[in-house]
């Protein structure tokens, strides 16, 4: 006699097979979904130069695998009711709704006579016993889905093998970002250092921190290679403008004179000399101001006058004002007018304080400027270019001389050099072009990076094909008559055409785009 338990036992066995089958089918579908997603994400990442080679590989393997596994597990463990499974299996196994009817009759006998129900169950069980799951529910995947998965895999492989240059560009972009972040931290540290420097006045601190804060703000807002380097160079120049080229000579003169004084023992000016020798003009000024001439004997006064005279002579070339005040004090002391001498010494102390502060300002500005230049160099190096530490502009050691008014070709030191030797100077005389101010731009010094292909920018006529020529303007060197913002569009159009025509090597097209973007008025 047929038992409902036998039928449910068979049904449970089929459901296990059904789960396996669905797991396999959905694994392939999950794989397709994962491959498609990773292809789209990978293409986007590669095209935007944001994905490194390893990251791309991780993406295109982990995402499809995870997706396939998730889909498969979901399909395997997705709840299946007996009745729904019976209906699906009735159709799939061509059981003519026998199993689902038997299940329903067991749950809701309705008005069907018991004998009919028993016969229906027996009929269903007989039909069910002819089913062999491994034969009738084969674990098979659809060929179209398998082909689709294979095609997507091949496309991903093709993308991987053909994106070497873009991976390198992504690596450079990543290095640049890292360098920019590092530089940002250094600037923050520098700002803290300057704000706590006791040798600087508040005004001096403000003058020093203003360009640094502006640079920090720019770096955070626009952390691109070109903009970052431009910002750092600009800030560096502003800081260099705060330096005094003669401050170094004055400091040396003060140290040397201080050393001479410090060697004279039992002298009233020995402490002053020691402070000066140690390079501490502010402390020296305090010593000078605290010197009490009225306590000196006649012999000591004569010795002190002579020493002041000697000190004045040593500082005459670098700080005439201080030297004059020291002379005045020496003469007053020789004449026995200690009050006048004391007053002159106080004035000299004030001058020495000012000189010390100027020296501190110049020193701090120079150090900050140097640090910014080094930072710019590191960013450039991270972007594949050379560091600007070799001082591309021999005039002042900065990368460019914006607004200096020099026309094309006047930067003779750099003219005619092959690309890669030094950054292309930007001394194009924008001040004559109608625009009163403009931001400095970054020009990659070595296209393609240190290990990239070299591009020879030949200066000789007749060599190579001219792929575009901009509008010529009348006038003389350094005296452009057409405003820059009026001709930029034409140059940009020529550039875009050259890129679209394939005249520009693909790996450099983004660099050139960035260059023209940075030139936009």
């Amino acid at each position: 006699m047929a038992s409902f338990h036998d039928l449910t036992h068979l049904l449970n066995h089929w459901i296990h097979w059904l789960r396996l089958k669905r797991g396999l089918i959905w694994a392939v579908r999950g794989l397709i979904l994962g491959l498609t997603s990773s292809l789209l994400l990978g293409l986007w990442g590669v095209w935007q130069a944001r994905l490194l080679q390893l990251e791309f590989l991780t993406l295109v393997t982990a995402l499809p695998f995870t997706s396939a596994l998730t889909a498969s597990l979901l399909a395997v463990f997705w709840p299946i009711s007996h009745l729904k499974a019976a209906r699906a299996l009735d159709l799939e196994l061509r059981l003519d709704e026998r199993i689902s009817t038997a299940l329903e009759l067991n749950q809701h006998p309705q008005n069907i006579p018991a004998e009919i129900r028993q016969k229906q169950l027996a009929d269903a069980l007989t039909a069910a016993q002819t089913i062999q799951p491994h034969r009738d529910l084969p674990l098979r995947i659809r060929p179209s889905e398998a082909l689709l998965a294979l095609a997507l895999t091949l496309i991903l492989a093709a993308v991987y093998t053909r994106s070497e240059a873009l991976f390198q560009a992504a690596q450079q972009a990543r290095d640049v970002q890292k360098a920019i972040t590092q530089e940002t931290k250094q600037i923050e540290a520098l700002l803290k250092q300057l704000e706590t420097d006791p040798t600087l006045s508040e005004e001096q601190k403000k003058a020093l921190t203003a360009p640094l804060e502006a640079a920090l703000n720019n770096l955070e807002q626009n952390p691109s290679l070109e903009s970052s380097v431009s910002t750092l160079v600009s800030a560096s120049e502003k800081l260099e403008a705060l330096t005094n080229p003669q401050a170094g000579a004055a400091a040396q003169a003060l140290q040397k004179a201080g050393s001479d004084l410090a060697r004279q023992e039992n002298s009233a000016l020995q402490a002053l000399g020691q402070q000066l020798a140690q390079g501490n003009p502010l402390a020296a000024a305090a010593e000078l101001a605290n010197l009490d001439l009225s306590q000196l004997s006649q012999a000591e006064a004569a010795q002190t006058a002579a020493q002041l005279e000697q000190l004045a002579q040593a500082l005459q070339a670098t700080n005439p004002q201080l030297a004059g005040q020291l002379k005045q004090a020496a003469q007053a002391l020789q004449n026995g007018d200690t009050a006048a001498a004391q007053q002159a010494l106080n004035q000299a102390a004030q001058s020495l304080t000012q000189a010390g502060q100027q020296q501190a300002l110049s020193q701090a500005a120079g150090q900050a400027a140097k640090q910014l230049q080094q930072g710019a160099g590191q960013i450039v190096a991270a972007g594949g270019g050379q560091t600007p530490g070799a001082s591309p502009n021999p005039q002042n050691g900065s990368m460019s001389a914006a607004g200096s008014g020099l026309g094309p070709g006047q930067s003779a030191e750099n003219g005619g050099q092959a690309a890669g030797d030094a950054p292309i100077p930007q001394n194009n005389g924008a001040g004559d072009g109608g625009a009163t101010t403009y931001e400095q731009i970054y020009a990659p010094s070595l296209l393609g990076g240190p290990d990239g292909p070299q591009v020879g920018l030949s200066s000789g006529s007749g060599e190579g094909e001219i792929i575009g020529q901009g509008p010529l303007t009348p006038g003389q060197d350094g005296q452009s008559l057409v405003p820059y913002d009026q001709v930029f569009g034409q140059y940009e159009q020529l550039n875009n055409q050259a890129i679209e025509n394939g005249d520009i090597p693909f790996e450099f097209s983004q660099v050139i785009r960035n260059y023209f973007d940075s030139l936009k008025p």
Partner: protein
Amino acid sequence: MPEFSIDQFRQIASQIENEVGQVIVGQTEVVRHVLVSILAGGHVLLEGVPGLGKTMLIRTLGQALDLKFSRIQFTPDLMPADILGTEILSDQDGRREFRFRPGPLFANLVLADEINRATPKTQSALLEAMQEASVTVAQKTYHLEEPFFVLATQNPLEMEGTYPLPEAQLDRFFFKVNVTLPDVADMVQILERTTGQSTACAGRAASGAEIVSMRALARTVPVASHVKEYIAKLMLATHPTDSNATALVKQYVRYGVSPRGGQALMLGAKVTALLAGRYNVAFEDVHAVAPAALRHRLLLNFDGLAEGLNPDKVIAELLKALPH
């Protein structure tokens, strides 16, 4: 509990088909549909050009079923009393009284030949009897003996002087069966059988009581809920306003199948399941009877009629499109 087992059911049904097959060559689908209709307790409308054996089929069926058989040839001058019966004045033992004399409708198997030639009045009398299984004459109701089947025929070609059955009356036929031309092999056999010395004759295969029992058994066949839903959806999908309606339905159908069509589908499918040796209805049973159960219940609109659209095409498209 029905008196019949499924094996007996199948055996008798097979015998009926065999006996009919002794006389009727081919037309197995037609015979099957007529048999399903009879076992489901429904009336059948057979449509086909003259000479295809419609009348012969029904006559043979009458022989095989050992039922009281009568034939009514419908003509324009046929009156309701001619088929229902009439009261006549009779003289018995000196007493004169009206006695009811039953018409040809008082039989188990009635052949209404060329039903569309009679007037609507006569058609209505027949169709009322089909629906109620009783007739009323002179304010007196007479019940028709069970089983009662009407097998009507009509000719689709000669439309002049005919009275096409209204849709409401067509709906009372359980199935509408199209009788088509036989193929060459069947035709050859027909020629052999009908032009020789002996004439084939069908033997008795089932009695009226057995038919009634078989009908009872057929009604006990269980139908799974999703199959019932499918039948309901199929029925509703024949209406152009239904969300499951196909393009053909939306374009060419004026009004879809009535609930009576759904009943015919279900009962027909139950009988088909039993004939297939199953105790439950499958989708394929529904598909097997759907054209016969639905084709005369689909009302085409003017465009459908103008383009000569066959309702079978609409039904086939529906069966293909509607998910199980």
